[in-house]
């Protein structure tokens, strides 16, 4: 039986990863290499949060939660958003607790797209955006942001990409993989382009707690009129080092959220109960744990960016997330070649920029969510590798 013929057009439409071979190589060498290729904190979830999860299990809280998540958690989320960004959401109707930011992206896109609808995606960006759009029958329209513009979306680029079919813009700032942050003024310039057009914004703000002076994260939903047309996605993974708990949230206007909740209740039912109890503890009592982690990232960030620029890999200053995105084109190697050879010859894993969109060619993503000792050694090896491969 030819099982290929059973595959849906939708599943087939998802392109294979641009770096599959590199993936396989890195997996094979796991444990023998220094990994600066990991998009998650190296810190373990703070003990107080883990303890809340353990206590929840001890109490026998092993049942489903309401579809949208425990009301205590939804309230804690709205309190946080109010305090941090002055955003007002109704806990009962404008918040859904999701299985990480990933589920939130999926249900947001599914709830609003019809086949043929165009979605504008600035790249390089998180890998799921494009695939989620394709799975919903939408048409991704990518925009290549540039290093010389600090990888922010420019209003003229946006204007040029908009057509009558444009329904949604997917923004991911602070950005994975570039570490770029968009300031209030830069976001306002984007808002000015779309304010009279029927276009929604999905804003993925998973890294919102991880920005470095002088930058501070601004949510696009804060800008005038935007709360009514922004789907805001947040989570606990990055700020509280809770990736494996799989817990995030989506907020937005109740009409959109009601549609998302229909999808959520049939595909997920409800987010993990233990993770929700831990997340309540995170929001209520654990903000003090975020700051030391952020400061540690900041020191590593400066170290990596300084090291890259010193060895001749031009690196714009990333003011968010935990990535540096240096330009490796002085070596004459493609991103993929660079990473494959660096992995084989120096036993350090970093990710080709092309994994995050074609315009990532010529760049690599270095995650500094790793110990200072690892980073220091990796930079010594990177320098050696670059010197060996610099055209004479």
């Amino acid at each position: 039986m030819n099982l290929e013929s059973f595959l849906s057009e939708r599943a087939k439409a998802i392109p294979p990863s641009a770096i599959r071979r590199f993936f396989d190589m890195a997996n094979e060498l796991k444990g023998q290499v220094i990994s600066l290729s990991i998009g998650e904190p190296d810190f373990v979830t703070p003990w107080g949060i883990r303890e809340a999860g353990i206590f929840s299990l001890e109490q026998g809280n092993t049942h489903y939660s309401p579809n949208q998540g425990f009301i205590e958690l939804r309230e804690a989320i709205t309190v946080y958003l109010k305090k941090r960004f002055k955003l007002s959401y109704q806990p009962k109707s404008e918040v859904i607790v999701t299985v990480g930011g990933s589920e939130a992206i999926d249900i947001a896109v599914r709830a609003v797209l019809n086949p043929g609808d165009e979605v504008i995606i600035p790249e390089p960006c998180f890998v799921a955006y494009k695939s989620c759009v394709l799975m919903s029958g939408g048409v991704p329209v990518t925009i290549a942001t540039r290093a010389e513009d600090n990888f922010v979306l420019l209003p003229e680029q946006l204007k040029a990409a908009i057509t009558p079919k444009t329904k949604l813009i997917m923004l991911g700032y602070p950005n994975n993989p570039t570490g770029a942050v968009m300031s209030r003024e830069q976001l306002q310039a984007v808002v000015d382009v779309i304010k009279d057009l029927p276009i929604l914004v999905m804003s993925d703000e998973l890294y919102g707690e991880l920005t470095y002076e002088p930058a501070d994260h601004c949510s696009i939903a804060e800008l005038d009129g935007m709360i009514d047309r922004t789907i805001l996605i947040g989570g606990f993974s990055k700020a509280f080092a809770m990736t494996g708990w799989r817990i995030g949230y989506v907020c937005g206007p109740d009409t959109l959220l009601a549609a998302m909740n229909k999808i959520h209740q049939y595909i997920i039912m409800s987010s993990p109960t233990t993770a929700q109890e831990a997340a309540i503890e995170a929001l209520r009592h654990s903000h003090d744990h975020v700051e030391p982690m952020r400061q540690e990232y900041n020191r590593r960030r400066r170290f990596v960016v300084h090291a890259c620029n010193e060895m001749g890999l031009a690196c714009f200053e990333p003011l968010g997330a935990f990535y540096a995105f240096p330009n490796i084109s002085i070596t004459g190697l493609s991103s993929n070649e660079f990473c494959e050879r660096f992995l084989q010859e120096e036993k350090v894993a970093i990710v080709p920029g092309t994994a995050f969109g074609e315009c990532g060619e010529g760049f690599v993503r270095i995650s500094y969510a790793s110990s200072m000792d690892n980073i220091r050694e990796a930079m010594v090896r990177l320098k050696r590798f670059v010197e060996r491969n610099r055209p004479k």
Partner: protein
Amino acid sequence: MKNIEEILSLLEKNAKLTAAEIAVMTDSPIAEVEKIIADLEAQHIILGYGALVNWEKTTASPVTALIEVRVTPQRGQGFDNIAQRIYRHSQVQSCYLMSGGFDLMVIIEDKSLKEVAMFVSEKIAPLESVISTQTHFILKKYKMNGTEFASKDEDNREAIVL
């Protein structure tokens, strides 16, 4: 001031950091970092640079004891004089004046239980102002100066996460 505190806490965690590395990590000029460190050393705020050692994994394995000492304070001297007479012994690793049920906490490290016991009975207990002592031996160290001794260092995250 903020810079000074940051440099102190960085060095407290890892004394091997160079001034050049600290300069990059704190976004400060290297000359400034060097000066701050030199000043801190001159003012005896930084008193030394040591390694955190898990002696239990070596063949040396010295014993450590916490000794609660109750003393009579001396007129005009308080506890300082008697504390000094105790902490000047090279076996004394640390010595603190305490609130609560006893006065001095003396931490002693020596080669064996017997040597610690002898030291207490010969050098501390007979002192005139010492009222009583109570010796507690450390059986196992779980965490010291913020470092967990049993924690595993391996990174069990996936090879690549995009």
